[in-house]
């Protein structure tokens, strides 16, 4: 393979990946990525009709005729969904297969016409990255620039629509018009991208980059940028991998790269990844166990129990032995509890922290009854949860709102310690 051919392939795949990433971000946020799959199948009759009418496989003609059918398919899906009791997934499947069937029938007509060769059209079905020409690259680049410019110019309305169509309408944007522009962009990108990865795999290129970007950032601008980079990267990396063997199709390798990257992201992304969520949950659980233990000791102290042992704690509150042990050793490391001759006591620090939790619990019970008219027997459960969540600021607001009550609804004292100052 010559160097320039290799360059074309990688450049083409990079461009397709980048533009799919950009447009796909919006499809992902609107949870409409499977519409992309429908569009990529429905474009087929458009391509064949474009070829039959114009008698040429000129990429621009085919992109135009393909895009028109892409738009028709999106409109058909919406129409079926809105005007019948069929669900959106049924509508998508109907449109996908019927238009694809129409395209297949037309293809078999072309195959039988005297000067008909399906070769150029078949490229759209399976992708032809290995045979991309300079012409194709120029076409890709033009589409890419067009898409990026449109997204930059119309960023504000697109942002509102991606957030919520109703919200965008409320802001005064003409939602229908901008959704149409977005649909046009999506169709153009899909038609263009088909030449590189083929009809079945195109939708992955729309989904993957957006999904990955979503897990790394909350800002739409950063998401778009990241999505473009990820799309371009997977295009190029997939292209390189496909060179491992002659006659190796490119599209599948792009999708394999993309899928791997998505899985890695889902697992390891900071904050939103599976691992991050797991460790956050563990931390929360640990903190709750410690706070519950402190609170239980404080409740025993309130009852006048001077000889608090492990057993008396367990009698007061059922705790798993392992959880108990871990919480206790963590607390004694923090210098909040002491153990002397089997007798457990709180240090000054421990008392303050234990009283804080009891206070939050009882303040919240007070708030539920006094302000939200809850019955006395309905408040304990909620307070058990919320006591671990209320911040110092919220605590202050609560105390002032309730004017420092001395007892909770069950006539138990609310300990303030130094909190009143």
């Amino acid at each position: 393979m010559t160097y320039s051919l290799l360059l074309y392939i990688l450049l083409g795949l990079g461009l397709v990946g980048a533009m799919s990433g950009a447009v796909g971000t919006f499809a992902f946020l609107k949870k409409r990525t499977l519409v992309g799959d429908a569009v990529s199948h429905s474009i087929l009759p458009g391509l064949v009709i474009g070829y039959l009418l114009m008698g040429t496989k000129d990429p621009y003609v085919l992109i135009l005729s393909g895009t028109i059918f892409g738009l028709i398919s999106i409109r058909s899906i919406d129409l079926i969904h809105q005007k019948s009791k069929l669900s959106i997934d049924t509508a998508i499947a109907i449109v996908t297969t019927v238009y694809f069937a129409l395209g297949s029938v037309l293809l078999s007509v072309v195959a039988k016409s005297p000067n008909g060769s399906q070769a150029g059209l078949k490229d759209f079905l399976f992708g032809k990255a290995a045979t991309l020409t300079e012409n194709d690259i120029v076409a890709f680049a033009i589409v890419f620039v067009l898409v990026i410019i449109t997204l930059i110019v119309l960023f504000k309305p697109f942002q509102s629509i991606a957030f919520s169509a109703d919200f965008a309408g409320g802001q005064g944007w003409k939602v229908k018009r901008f959704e149409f522009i977005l649909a046009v962009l999506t169709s153009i990108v899909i038609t263009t991208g088909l030449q590189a990865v083929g009809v079945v795999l195109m939708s992955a290129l729309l989904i993957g980059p957006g999904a990955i970007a979503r897990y790394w950032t909350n800002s739409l601008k950063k998401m778009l940028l990241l999505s473009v980079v990820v799309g371009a990267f997977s295009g190029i990396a997939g292209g390189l991998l496909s060179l491992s063997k002659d006659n190796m199709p490119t599209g599948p390798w792009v999708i394999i790269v993309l899928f791997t990257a998505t899985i890695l992201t889902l697992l390891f992304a900071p904050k939103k990844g599976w691992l991050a969520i797991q460790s956050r949950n563990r931390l929360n659980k640990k903190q709750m166990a410690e706070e519950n233990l402190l609170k239980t000791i404080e409740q025993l102290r309130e009852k006048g129990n001077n000889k608090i042992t492990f057993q008396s704690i367990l009698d007061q509150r059922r705790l798993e032995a392992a959880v108990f042990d871990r919480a206790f050793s963590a607390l004694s490391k923090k210098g909040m509890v002491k153990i002397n001759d089997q007798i457990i006591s709180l240090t000054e620090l421990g008392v303050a922290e234990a009283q804080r939790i009891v206070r939050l619990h009882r303040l919240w019970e007070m708030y539920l009854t006094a302000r939200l008219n809850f019955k006395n027997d309905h408040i304990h459960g909620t307070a058990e949860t919320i006591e671990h969540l209320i911040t110092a600021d919220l605590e202050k607001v609560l105390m002032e709102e309730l004017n420092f009550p001395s007892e909770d609804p069950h006539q138990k004292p609310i300990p303030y310690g130094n909190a009143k100052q």
Partner: protein
Amino acid sequence: MEMLSSNDGLNIILALLISWSCSILGVFLMLRKMVMVGDAITHSVLPGVVIAYLMGSGGENYIVLLGAAFFGVLTTVIIDFLFRKLKLQEDASIGLTFTWLFAVGVVLIAFFSDGNADIDQECVLFGELGLSFMDKIIWNGYVLGTKSIWMIGPMFLLILILVIKGFKGFQIISFQTDYAASKGIKVNKWHYLLMILVSLVTVLSFESVGAILVVGFLILPPATAYLLSSRLIRIHFISIGLATAGVLIGYLLAQWFDVSISPMIVLTLGFVFFLTFVIKMQNTKHLK
């Protein structure tokens, strides 16, 4: 138009058996709002098919079926894993899973086929019903159908028996999954049974209709029937009727215009859906 030959008869029998099997399964897929998962399965059984082709001789062997069932279940497991455990939104979970498995299948073809024309991307996408009569089974000079018919026929009977036997189970998970679970019905069992059956039927129709058009067989008759009725048993009967009509008319039209058969059948089914949709759409407008 040429007279229909006995070969056409064999093709039509095959198409009918496929369409009836798909119709029964499609009704449940549609009501469970799992059309997209079904769509995904039709694509993602490809690696199973390829591996079976590589291991065994030709298409119709039982390894293909096992491979298909395995990858069909694997698909739903991966989708569920991405969606429930890793919290990726559902549409993206489905879209990424089936494209990935399909991609793996295509790569496998490229790695191992080496010009072996037995299986290629194109046959996966399109299928060719018109050639199904080629694997005729002849005994003592009598044509006893084709290999394909003898594969899909028992499958259709199996589906029929399972659905009749387990009608209550399928019915209840189609309409009220949560209620079914609360009644102690093993929702997962029915769910995976449905997915396995979809995988098997898909694979059995691979060569004749292809991975994409089989979705049309699965969803068009049930969706049209659903527009006409809301009662499960009626939906099934209407759907089978429509499937039969679609196959017969589509086949004749394909012969008439000399075009590919299975796309023409799907197109016919689509046209019937379109007519029903337009009539029903006007009716609801009228009522409003």
